[in-house]
């Protein structure tokens, strides 16, 4: 499916979307509250079939966080990027681990590295960091570790 068709089809699902072109793939800026509904539709709508979540991450923009989801379809081979803006303090977003199961681990990683709280996540615990690191969020830009980090 071409980018134009994708834009039309996905915009029809969720009118509040902001579409951004110019990068390699289409980017959709989604409102936080619409995300879960849209995710379900993206996976299930015939013709879209975004069944493969190949990258899930978060970017710290110092004023806000943004979740980045790279989705593609193993049937139609098209790829889109979904972005969700989150608040800087106490960021909360709905989990998509019920839709794409790979999200379970990736969300746990984002949870410990950025402190994003995923609502309704089945098992939101620290995955990589040892116990006692809750709330320290090392991947955030303002994280300070005077012992182990060397400033260049």
């Amino acid at each position, binding site marked *: 499916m071409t980018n134009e068709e994708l834009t039309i089809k996905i915009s029809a699902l969720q009118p509040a979307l902001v579409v951004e072109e110019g990068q390699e793939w289409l980017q959709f800026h989604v409102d936080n509250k619409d995300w879960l509904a849209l995710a379900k539709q993206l996976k299930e709508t015939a013709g879209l079939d975004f069944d493969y979540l*190949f990258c899930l991450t978060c*970017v710290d923009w110092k004023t806000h966080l943004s979740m980045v989801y*790279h989705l593609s379809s*193993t049937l139609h081979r098209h790829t889109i990027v979904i972005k969700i803006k989150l608040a800087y303090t106490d960021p909360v977003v709905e989990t998509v681990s019920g839709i794409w*199961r790979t999200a379970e681990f990736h969300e746990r990683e984002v949870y410990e590295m950025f402190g994003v709280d995923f609502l309704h996540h089945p098992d939101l615990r620290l*995955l990589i960091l*040892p116990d006692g690191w809750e709330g320290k969020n090392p991947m955030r830009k303002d994280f300070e570790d005077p012992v182990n980090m060397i*400033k260049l």
Partner: protein
Amino acid sequence: MYRETAIVNESEVTGDLVINMGPQHPATHGVLHLVVHINGETIRKVEPHLGYIHRSIEKMSESLSYRQFIYVTSRMDYLSSHINNHACAMCVEKGLQVEVPPRAQYIRVIMDELTRIASHTLWWGAMAMDVGALTPFFLAFREREMINDIMEETCGARLTMNYMVPGGVMYDLHPLFQQRVKEFIKHFRSKIDEYDELVTGNIIFQNRMKGVGILTKEDAVSYGCSGPTARGSGVSCDIRKLYPYEVYDKVQFDEPLETAGDSFARYLVRLQELRQSMSILEQLIDDIPEGDIQAKTKAVLKLPKGEFYTRAETARGELGVYIVSEGGTTPYRIKYRSPGFSNLSALDHMARGGKIGDLVAMMGTLDLVIPDIDR
């Protein structure tokens, strides 16, 4: 930093025995910690605990320049370090919009395929060792050693090569490179049949492998599996075929697919990949074009503001490099989408209901490299 190991001793489900497989355990091939809930020999639940070799390469890369950060990525999936470097170099090139000279493209692909063979042979030996056959390990190392020697001549290193740089490759090929690779292919063609005879056809091995660790096609997609793990379940996901990079669109090769989704299917896919990689090498090795090995780039690289995502097919699956640039000399944010991380997430689903011996065999077929998972 000293890390206190959280030893899990009790299961929430009463009557289950909890064993901590790892961080030091012969079958985890590294510092993976699996908390396994078992009832007798039957596995109820597998919980991976990661981070024993977490070096936060993503955070580190944020303070390294676009030339420097590539070297750190050799330490991610150390068995396919060329391909890691390659993916990163491609991502920087995409941002810089630099065209890589044809000679460098050929060299890169040849190196990638050699790495894939080296990685898969090591996997074959380790896999056989996991199911209790110790001899294949030594046979596999015989072949891997030849590749390491070839690498050493050209790149100067045997494991973490740091050979790919933005714009091309670091040095030109060693004069004997082509001859050595051809000798290797000739040698390996005869040895791979020996592999089949010794292990693939063995009835005990087949019994251990067939019908265990079944991952259906839907599950493989849902868990984000890639590489041979997904191809064993019938998911066509070879980045080299779907989104060809460098000269992969000029060579003829097949994407091996199996539909059974069990451990044996993953095993067969990897063995066929070895043969395909050899065929790619044979097609490329004789017509490496003459010319530059590096495109002309500035001494200090600056990527334009924007986001760049490249993917490459490592020996384990799809490696994604996601660079967010703010226009500076260092990346603003880097995310490595490592294949092992997603493949590991499917382990719990696959292992439930199996035996302890099955779990070991499954981990073998997933081909986990722990630094790749932890990053």
